[in-house]
């Protein structure tokens, strides 16, 4: 990752080797954070696989915090989806 920003509150992260798969889902998780004033991502050029991910926080919170929280929340979501899916598959097979 690279970071770029004038002050700690609004930072543009450049994520390499990523595309809409992580970009859109991470944007959703970061937007759900009430401290975030602006969050967006864009793909600079479709031939290069990197995304510009921008976070702007209201107040004095450094922008890295919502980024980290978003990643952790997304991990939590995936973990829960995985366990629920496996449990449902087991139940479905048991009652077949």
């Amino acid at each position: 990752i690279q970071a770029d920003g004038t002050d700690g509150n609004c930072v543009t992260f450049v994520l390499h080797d990523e595309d809409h798969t992580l970009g859109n889902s991470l944007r959703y998780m970061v937007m759900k954070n009430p401290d975030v004033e602006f969050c967006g991502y864009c793909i600079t050029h479709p031939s290069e696989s990197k995304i510009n991910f921008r976070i702007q926080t209201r107040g004095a919170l450094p922008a890295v915090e919502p980024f980290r929280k978003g990643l952790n929340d997304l991990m939590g979501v995936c973990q829960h989806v995985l366990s629920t899916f496996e449990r449902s598959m087991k139940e479905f097979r048991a009652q077949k």
Partner: protein
Amino acid sequence: MAARRGADEMRDRVVLGEFGVRNVHTTDFPGNYPGYEDAWDQRRFEEAFRVDVIREEEDTLEFDMVGIDAAIANAFRRILLAEVPTMAVEKVFVYNNTSIVQDEILAHRLGLIPIRADPRLFEYRNQGDQEGTEIDTLQFQLKIKCKRNPQAAKESSDPDELYFNHKVYSKHMTWVPLGNQTDLFPDADFRPVHDDILIALLRPGQEIDVLMHCVKGIGKDHAKFSPVATASYRLLPDITLLQPIEDEAAEVLQKCFSPGVIEIQNINGKKVARVANARLDTFSREVFRHEGLKNLVRLARVRNHYIFSVESTGILPPDVLVSEAIKILMGKCQRFLNELDSVPME
């Protein structure tokens, strides 16, 4: 109350109008709706989320994911198509090819054949490594020669009778263990998933003698590495009748939708239409072509109910593919978390 209902509709439903679709984007972010709790809460998500498996066959899986957002459902779909790794033929060493099929066409066809080998047992090949070691390569051989059948009848023109081995199928590919692969995989049987894939046609005197190296790759690199025939999702349809519809209008309404969606009940001698099973509908919007009916029905989709349909090529069962896709998304997040913690941000 009406304002609340309108807000509920905007948050939960994607409405299909006559000329366009409304409320497409997710808007339930904190601060957009006063009086709604929209900040992320893992516990609330876990209470509302559920997965229902509808149908499972050998290679297809249909399941519902309820309570998740489009961004994450789409991420799973994209990963299923392009980032779950499989093994496929990458390098073809042609020792002899006197068939009518050119070398590169033959190599391309061999690459597209799905190979029944669990990719989790193998590693990726290192960049620039030409030889391939036993932990990242599977070797197959295809050696076949077409001969004339001396016992064939004089006037027969059926190629099956006249020639031996004139059709080259994928069952003619044999696994050649490399190094200590026989010890690593004692009861493994690496072969193509389907035995009856036609690779080439031969005539007497022509032969094919090739050695193939299979490596692990992902669909982003080349579509031959994609483990699914297709993986798609659709949103659950939601049809509401705004007013009671009776008699001939009910008959017309039933024909506007897919069979089984609208059923007609006999109440007090009159025929009344009722939405029986909205899930079956494919939303052809036929109802908008009838002037009398188009304002009486609301076509919508439930925004957070996804009906996934995953069809595997046979390499891995579809439920394993979905689990792997979820783990890959977790791996991506973990990679960035590790980078954040290790590299100081400037």
